[in-house]
């Protein structure tokens, strides 16, 4: 059985990744799962300077989902390279760094440093809905998105470039194409969908930030649809995520067109979700006589 997949030239031992912001810097889950078993670890979004993040409450549960407005709290590029990356490097897995900036310059600076540090891939977060300056403009304006991708692509030498698409657009296909045309090696989707919840007793928003990003099984049907549409619009690999809780959900994304998948909110519910999904995937392949996981990608039967 062959679980290997390739994401824009980067070989992953298997297609199970973690979704940025839901797996800390790897350390937090190292007591629960063997990190060597993961296809790749995608770390929490890194900015040039450390960010404090939003005031609490930052999360709120919703039906089959959760809202978060962490506000991109992170240790910043310098500390990440000094303290977090060395830990991750101890494991035999790919390290993908999710990054964000307020300007092309910032994205470029971070990318350059990460490229030098030899991380396996950079995931451009252009879709975080929490911080005004957090790149929301890049994610919903095709021209800006294209410039950003080209700008970063020109800087990095070895690092694979993944663009994480925002789901808050009317036609995801166009944005997928923009990413492809601008030189992105792969796309990942979906990021959270902006949402809001109100405590009717206090009449206050449940998040101090008022709005936050919706994740979890609630959004899975939207994510599967967007992966399907994006897959059919571009030739670069698609990394699918959004509400994947178990192997069956993951398989849905492969059939829709994903080459790899990322596990997000599920980690919170079950810290062993990633490796559990991997075993489930293997069982399914055995049962269905699938030799290469990559043959599952886009195998939707619409006959």
């Amino acid at each position, binding site marked *: 059985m062959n679980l290997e997949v390739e994401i824009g030239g980067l070989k992953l031992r298997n297609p199970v990744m973690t979704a940025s912001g839901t797996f800390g810097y790897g350390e937090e889950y190292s007591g629960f799962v063997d990190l060597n078993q993961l296809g790749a670890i995608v770390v929490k979004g890194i900015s040039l300077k450390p960010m404090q993040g939003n005031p609490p*409450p930052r999360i709120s549960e919703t039906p089959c989902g*959760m809202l978060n407005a962490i506000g991109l*709290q992170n240790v910043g590029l310098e500390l990440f390279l000094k303290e977090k990356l060395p830990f991750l490097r101890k494991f035999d897995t790919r390290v993908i760094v999710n990054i964000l900036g307020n300007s092309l310059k910032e994205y470029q600076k971070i990318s350059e440093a990460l490229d030098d540090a030899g991380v396996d891939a950079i995931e451009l977060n252009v879709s975080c809905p929490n911080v005004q300056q957090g790149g929301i403009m890049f994610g919903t304006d095709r021209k800006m998105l294209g410039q950003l991708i080209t700008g970063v692509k020109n800087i990095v030498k070895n690092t694979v470039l993944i663009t994480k698409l925002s789901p808050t657009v009317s036609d995801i296909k166009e944005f997928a194409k923009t990413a492809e045309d601008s030189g992105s090696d792969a796309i990942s989707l979906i990021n959270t969908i902006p949402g809001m919840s109100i405590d009717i007793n206090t009449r206050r928003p449940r998040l101090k930030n008022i709005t936050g990003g919706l994740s979890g099984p609630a959004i899975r049907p939207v994510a599967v649809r967007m992966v399907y549409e994006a897959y059919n619009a571009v030739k670069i690999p698609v990394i699918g995520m959004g509400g994947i809780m178990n192997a069956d959900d993951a398989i849905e994304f492969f059939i829709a067109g994903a080459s790899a998948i990322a596990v997000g909110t599920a980690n919170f519910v079950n810290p062993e979700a990633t490796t559990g999904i991997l075993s489930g995937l293997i069982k399914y392949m055995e049962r269905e006589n699938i030799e290469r996981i990559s043959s599952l990608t886009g195998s939707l039967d619409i006959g």
Partner: protein
Amino acid sequence: MSRYFRAKIRENLPLNRNHKLLTLETSSPENEPLPGQFYMLGVNRGGYDPLLKRAFSLFRKTSDGFQILYRIKGKGTSLLGGMKEGDMIDMIGPLGRSYPVPETGRTPLVIAGGVGMASVFSLIESIPERSYVFYGAKSKDELFMLDELGALSKGLYISTDDGSLGKKGNIAGVLEDFWGRKHETEDQYLIYACGPKPLLGLIARTASSHSIQAFVSLEEQMACGIGACLGCAVRVKSPVSVLQGSEQDFIYRKVCKDGPVFDAAEILW
């Protein structure tokens, strides 16, 4: 080391209208929880609603597991309340930082507001006949384990909002009275508290004005419970501001990992 595991419900005993005592049996008891630590419990019975696990303090260890004392508040705790003997619950724990063990020679004042008792009970139990316990609740029927607490403490002070038992009013008031009659010099005291945030803030101020160290256990919305999601942020004075005494400068800490027990002087209330 915290683990992800399943535990069997031995008993889910109603204590009153909206509080229950859950007794869990764990197969491998090697992970000894400490007073002040907590567990994330799956309250879900099929499907993904509610989605997230719920945080509950270690109430008391048992020979083959532990107990949780909980208040039925919303969706998740209602579901938990409906679970029966033999049902399995998946959970993560023990989690977080425990109450620091009080040095010998210091007298712990342990303060609990309402179901906050769930968090401090095992601490009181771990230092038998050393602590003064201050326990406040809405009314008499929301005060639990009074006999045990009487036996475990050097003194048990009670208050209820409706005056149905002990002093009428907030437990902070009882604490004020205590200062008047106290026998030891103040710096021998050490405060531990768990309860509603306004109460903890009050206690923090009192403690600071009396120059007593206070440890408080905080609550915040949690998703992961293990430090990964950054959801459970609490504002603490940044190391610099602590030195400079400026309250402007702060950093966020995680209730689940850096807490839930914090030195009250660190928190920006």
